């Protein structure tokens, strides 16, 4: 092949050059989700204080503390509960920076949006006034305190949820839901959903990579939308076909419609002790919240 016969770009790079396209974003998102799930599962099976506790006891502990965080109106108590959460995370070898960042990067934004109206609507002394055209808005001191408590409460609750996920395999979390009288069929459906979501993420990743490998020029928005629509349809079709095969595989192993879930959990004295301690912490937090501001 001569130099002049070398393949040339099909289209001139436009002003979009250098921007990360939707394809790369989607690929990155899917890959990130899978990597994150693998990391979380591996960490949940590692060594650590919380990892060694029976998942049912752990679920009870976390629910009790989340409930306490929801019931208390004291910022000091919430701070104390968060401190306990951080200590538990440390003892469970959860990567500290990852744990803190994951919770606090999003919470102030999303929880903050929810409480913005409360800043101005809660009655009380106004700290300052903001002129917005013909309207004067003024945040109240009780409104600001309430907003901070709300964000702290959400932060503590989400931290506890993240800590539970980081220290307990998903399969165990789902099975522990039986403790809350969640029917077995829901547990099975949830666990199968968790199982197959990764398979379809892998499939979607493959489809997007195959498209990327054949792209030689920017495509129009219309073409991209057509591709996304086609891919979604293809995935739904595959999922439907696969669901039939999976049902056949279940029948081949004696499934008759009655769901049975396998658990090998054994509650030890240590589990009971830790659960009791967590319940005591939760009760103390609720009571202390009435006396401490």
């Amino acid at each position, binding site marked *: 092949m001569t130099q002049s016969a070398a393949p040339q770009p099909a289209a001139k790079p436009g002003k979009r050059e250098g921007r990360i396209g939707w394809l790369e974003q989607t690929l990155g998102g899917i890959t990130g989700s899978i990597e994150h799930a693998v990391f979380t599962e591996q960490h949940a099976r590692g060594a650590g204080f919380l990892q060694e506790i029976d998942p049912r006891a752990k679920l009870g502990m976390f629910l009790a503390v989340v409930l306490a965080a929801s019931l208390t109106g004291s910022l000091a108590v919430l701070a104390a509960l968060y401190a306990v959460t951080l200590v538990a995370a440390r003892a469970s070898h959860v990567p500290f920076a990852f744990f803190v960042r994951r919770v606090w990067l999003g919470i102030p934004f999303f929880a903050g949006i929810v409480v913005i109206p409360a800043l101005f609507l809660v009655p009380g002394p106004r700290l300052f006034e903001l002129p917005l055209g013909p309207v004067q808005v003024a945040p109240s001191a009780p409104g600001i305190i309430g907003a901070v408590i709300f964000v702290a409460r959400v932060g503590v609750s989400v931290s506890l949820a993240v800590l539970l996920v980081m220290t307990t395999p998903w*399969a165990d979390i789902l099975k522990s839901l039986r403790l809350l009288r969640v029917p077995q069929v829901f547990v099975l459906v949830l666990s199968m959903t968790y199982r197959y979501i990764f398979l379809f993420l892998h499939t979607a990743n493959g489809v997007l990579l195959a498209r990327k490998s054949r792209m030689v020029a920017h495509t129009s928005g219309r073409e991209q939308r057509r591709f996304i629509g086609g891919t979604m349809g293809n995935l739904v079709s595959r999922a439907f076909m696969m669901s039939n*095969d999976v049902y056949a595989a279940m*029948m081949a192993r*004696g499934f008759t419609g009655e769901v049975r879930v*396998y658990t*090998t959990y054994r509650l030890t004295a240590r589990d009971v002790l830790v659960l009791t301690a967590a319940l005591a912490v939760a009760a103390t937090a609720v009571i202390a919240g009435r006396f401490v501001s």
Partner: protein
Amino acid sequence: MSEVEQPVVFSLRGVRYVYSGRHVALDGIDLDIRQGEQVVLLGANGSGKSTLLKLLDGIIGPTAGTMRALGRDVAAVAAGEDAFHFHREVGLVFQDPDIQLFSATVLDDVAFGPLQLGLPPEEVARCCTQALAAMGIEGLAQRAPFELSGGEKKRAAIASVLSLEPSVLLLDEPTASLDPRTKWVLVNLIRDLAAEGRTLVTATHELDIVPIIADRVVVLGEERRVLADGAPDDVLNDRDLLIRANLIHEHLHEHGRIRHVHAHETGDDHHAPGAPALLREVV
């Protein structure tokens, strides 16, 4: 007792299976499989191997013809009659392990069958431990299927059926898409399972594993009928039969002034080291 005297496990007479009323997957299959036989169903893609295995497993019934398995009418089993006990005796390992492994962990999948049988927890634990040990994957019990490699998934899929302790094991393309080392590890595991006296029916189009895992070969043709039924050596040395079944193909090419006609496994590189010599011919 000679093998011929063993009781018949599967008996098929004029069995036909049609998908969606249009696509003929099997047509006029006559076949007897006796207890303890290690049968390989050999056929190209689309020859109906997987459909035949599903019929043998009683999860679908024949469209026409009669079929009995372990003394039961397969059409009735497929309709749900006594399926509960039938599936304890006959286990099917699907080609795609992602279909077989539908639970959140390997242990949950291996325990699924025994739990459906309503076995007590200690018995479920014993079945799971034995099945995982037989496949050498005790260390993967708590792993999620999406974390496993292809070979690990295949082993886990077989373990999920072995936990039912079936006397008949049906394997659909057990070595498909595996690297050579993993493939031969799995072939040895299958041979070990056969040595335990199980009836083994394996669907494949890989000729190199046939002599190791089979004492009988049933060739399915692209007409979805049985083309041949015999000993592995007889079938593998019948070059015309293998070409007719699209299991090998011939082509002519030149090396300088010498012309060769090669016959080799469909999809195989006949120049690769280890390519089956018996399938080559030089003219």
